[in-house]
C-alpha cells in the first residue's frame, strides 16, 4: 500500500520514516537490558530478535517457565509485543518463537528440538525467501520433509547454507551467538600476527589475556566470577569456552589455569587469528577482601582454586557439601549446598541410626515377619536369603502429606516403620514396612530395603 492510498483511507494517519539504524540501536539497548537481567550472554538478532543464552540462568527465576513469563511481562509492559521461546539450540528457539502462534512462552524440552522443528514450515529455518519459495514449489512444505529427503541433490541446487541452518537448528553443528556487552564489562582482546592452532600457543595467549584482564579488574576493584574466552577463527566460525569461579578472583595465574584446562574443547580449524577474554560476571573484590585471603591462608587451606578446577571439569552441580534439612523422610534429610558456603555447624540427630549406603529408590524385599509389631525374621533381597539374627525398631516415620510431589503425590499419608536388622553374618540393613497395619491409607504393608549400616 502506498502512502497516498493509506492517507486517502485514513487522513489522520501520522507518518514516521523507517529508520533501520535507529531500530538496530533500540534492539541493541533492549539486548543490553536483557543482558543485565537474564543472562550475561546476549546478542541482537536483527531485524527483530534477541538471542539469550540462558544456560544455567533459569534457576534464578525458579525455572525456564517463570523466566520466560518475566521477559514477556516486562517487555509487554514497555509497550512492545513479543514472542518468547526456549530450546536446545538457537536455531530451534528462533523458529519456534516466530512460527508457533501461541501468544504464550513456548518451551521446547531438552532433546525435543527435532520433534518441534519437524512440523514447522520450511521458512522457519532462516533461509533466504527465494530458496524457501523454490523449495515450496518442489513440494517441500515442512521441515520434516527436508530432514527425510536425500541431501546431495538439494545441496547441489541450493548450496550448503540450507543444510547448515538445518543442522544448526537440530544441534548437530554448533552455532555460538556473538554476544555484545555493555562498555562496563571488562574485555580484552589480542589479535595475532599469524593464525595459531596449537595448544601451547593458545596457552601462551591465554596467559597474556588473563594478565590483561587481571589488570583491568584490579584497577576497577573487581573480581571475575565468570570468564568467556572467544576464539576468532580464520574461517569466521567463532569458538568459545566459559569458566566460572566459586568466589570473585583476579588472580591471573589461577584464571589462566582454569581456561587452559578447557583448551582441548576448541576446534582450531584452519587457525585462530584473534582471541578475546570477557568477564561478563564481576563482583567487587576490594583490597580488604584480599587481605582476608592472605590471613586466612595461614590457618586453613584456600580451597577456591581447587574447587574452581574441579567445578570447571565436572560441572558446578557435581561439587557440593551436604547439610541437614528438616524433613521426616530420611532421603530428604540432606540438601546440597555449594562447597564454599558458610559452615552449617549443625549436624544430624546423633541418636537416630542412619545407614552409610542408601538404596535409592528403596527396593522391594520379601519378608517373613510376625504381624504387626515384630521385626523381620528373614528377608529375600536380590534373590538371596538373609536370615535375621537381631533387630532393633521400629522407628516410625510419617510421610510429608503437605508436599505435592514425590511419592506423597500418590500416598500422602504414608507411614514407614523402619527396622535395623542384623543378619547372621553380621551385615546390618535398614528395612521398612510401608503402612502402620491399621489404616490402609498409610500403605499396603509391603516391605522395602533402604540401605546398609556399618
Amino acid at each position, binding site marked *: 500500500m502506498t502512502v497516498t492510498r493509506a492517507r486517502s483511507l485514513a487522513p489522520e494517519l501520522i507518518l514516521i520514516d523507517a529508520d533501520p539504524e535507529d531500530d538496530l540501536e533500540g534492539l541493541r539497548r533492549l539486548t543490553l537490558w536483557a543482558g543485565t537481567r537474564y543472562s550475561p550472554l546476549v546478542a541482537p538478532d536483527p531485524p527483530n530478535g534477541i538471542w539469550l543464552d540462558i544456560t544455567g540462568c533459569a534457576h534464578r527465576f525458579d525455572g525456564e517457565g517463570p523466566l520466560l513469563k518475566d521477559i514477556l511481562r516486562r517487555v509487554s509492559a514497555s509497550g512492545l509485543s513479543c514472542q518468547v521461546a526456549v530450546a536446545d539450540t538457537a536455531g530451534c528457539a528462533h523458529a519456534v518463537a516466530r512460527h508457533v502462534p501461541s501468544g504464550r512462552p513456548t518451551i521446547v524440552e531438552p532433546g525435543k528440538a527435532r520433534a518441534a522443528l519437524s512440523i514447522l514450515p520450511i521458512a522457519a529455518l532462516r533461509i533466504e525467501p527465494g530458496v524457501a519459495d523454490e523449495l515450496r514449489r518442489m513440494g517441500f512444505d515442512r521441515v520434516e520433509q527436508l530432514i527425510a529427503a536425500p541431501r546431495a541433490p538439494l545441496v547441489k541446487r541450493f548450496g550448503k547454507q540450507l543444510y547448515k541452518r538445518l543442522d544448526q537448528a537440530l544441534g548437530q553443528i554448533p552455532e555460538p551467538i556473538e554476544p555484545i556487552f555493555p562498555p562496563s564489562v571488562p574485555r580484552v582482546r589480542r589479535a595475532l600476527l599469524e593464525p595459531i592452532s596449537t595448544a601451547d600457543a593458545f596457552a601462551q595467549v591465554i596467559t597474556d589475556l588473563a594478565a590483561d584482564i587481571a589488570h583491568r579488574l584490579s584497577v576497577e576493584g573487581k573480581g571475575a566470577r565468570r570468564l568467556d574466552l572467544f576464539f576468532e577463527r580464520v574461517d569466521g566460525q567463532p569458538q568459545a569456552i566459559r569458566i566460572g569461579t566459586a568466589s570473585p578472583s583476579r588472580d591471573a595465574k589461577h584464571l589462566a589455569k582454569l581456561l587452559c584446562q578447557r583448551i582441548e574443547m576448541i576446534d582450531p580449524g584452519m587457525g585462530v587469528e584473534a582471541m578475546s577474554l570477557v568477564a561478563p560476571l564481576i563482583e567487587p573484590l576490594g583490597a580488604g577482601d584480599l587481605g582476608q585471603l592472605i590471613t586466612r591462608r595461614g590457618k586453613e587451606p584456600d580451597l577456591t*582454586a*581447587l574447587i574452581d578446577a574441579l567445578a570447571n571439569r565436572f560441572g558446578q552441580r557435581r561439587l557440593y557439601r551436604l547439610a541437614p534439612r528438616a524433613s521426616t523422610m530420611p532421603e530428604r534429610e540432606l540438601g546440597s549446598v555449594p562447597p564454599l558456603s558458610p559452615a552449617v555447624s549443625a549436624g544430624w540427630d546423633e541418636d537416630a541410626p*542412619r*545407614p552409610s549406603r542408601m538404596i535409592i529408590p528403596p527396593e522391594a524385599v520379601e519378608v517373613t515377619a510376625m504381624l504387626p509389631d515384630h521385626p523381620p525374621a528373614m528377608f529375600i533381597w536380590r534373590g538371596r536369603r538373609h536370615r535375621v539374627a537381631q533387630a532393633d525398631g521400629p522407628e516410625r516415620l510419617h510421610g510429608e502429606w503437605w508436599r505435592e510431589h514425590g511419592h506423597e503425590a500418590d500416598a500422602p499419608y504414608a507411614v514407614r516403620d523402619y527396622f535395623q536388622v542384623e543378619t547372621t553374618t*553380621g551385615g546390618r540393613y535398614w528395612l521398612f514396612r510401608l503402612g502402620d497395619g491399621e489404616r490402609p491409607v498409610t500403605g499396603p504393608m509391603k516391605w522395602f530395603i533402604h540401605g546398609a*549400616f*556399618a
Partner: protein
Amino acid sequence: MQQSTVLQSLRARIAQIEGSVQSHAVVPFGIDAIDRHLPSGGIAAGALHEVAGSPELADDAAATVFLAGILARFDGPVFWCLRWRDLFAPALHLAGLHPDRVIFVEAGSDTNVLTAMEECLRHEGLGGVVGEVKAITSTASKRLQLAAEKSGVPAFVMRRALAADGKSDGSAAVTRWRIQASPSEKLGIPSLARPRWQMQLERVRGGEPQYWTVEGCDAQGRIALPADLVDRPAAQEDRQAAA
C-alpha cells in the same frame, strides 16, 4: 635385642630407599594391638591407602564408616570423590566426620574419580581425599601415591564391591584394608549392640598382613577391641612371639 636393632635399622634403610620416609602426620588407631603392626604406627598422611568391603552392601557400608572414622581424626577439609550419590552423609557424621568438612565430587566414572583425586591431592593442607572406584590400575595408584607423598595429604581409594579374590596386584598403596561386617554381641533385648567388623590388613609396606575383630566407630571415629575378644587367639599369638 641386638637383632631387633639391626632389623630396625634395616627397615629404616629400606624405607629410605623406597622413599616412604615418614615426615607426615600419622593418625593412630589408639589400639596398641593394631598400631604396632603398622610401620608408621597408624594411618600415615602423605600416602595412599586402599580400603575394600565386599560385594555385600553391608560390608561396603562398614568400610565407608571405617574410612569416615579415620578421616574424622585428621584435620582439614575432606574431598570425597564418588561415582554416583549413594553415600548417606548422616552416617559419616555419626562416625565423627562433620558434614561441614566434607566436599563431595560426583565424578561419574572410575577414570573421572581418579582424575579428581589426583587434582585434589596436588593441593596441600587437605584433611584427606577419598575416591570410590571399582578398579584401579597400578599406574594410576602410583600416580596417586606420588601426588599424596608430595602434598602430604592422606589418600584413600575405596574399592567398591570388591570380590574376596579380587586382586589389586601392583598397587602402590601403603596399606590395604578389608572391612567386613561380623555378628555383634547379643544383648538379649530387642536392640543392637555396637557393630563389629572383621578388619583385615591385607597388605602393608614393611609389615605383615594381620587380622582383627573390632567394634565399629564411636562418635569420635575410634574403633575398639571387643572386651570379650581381647584375650582371644590373635592377641595370644602375639604374646608367644614376644616371649
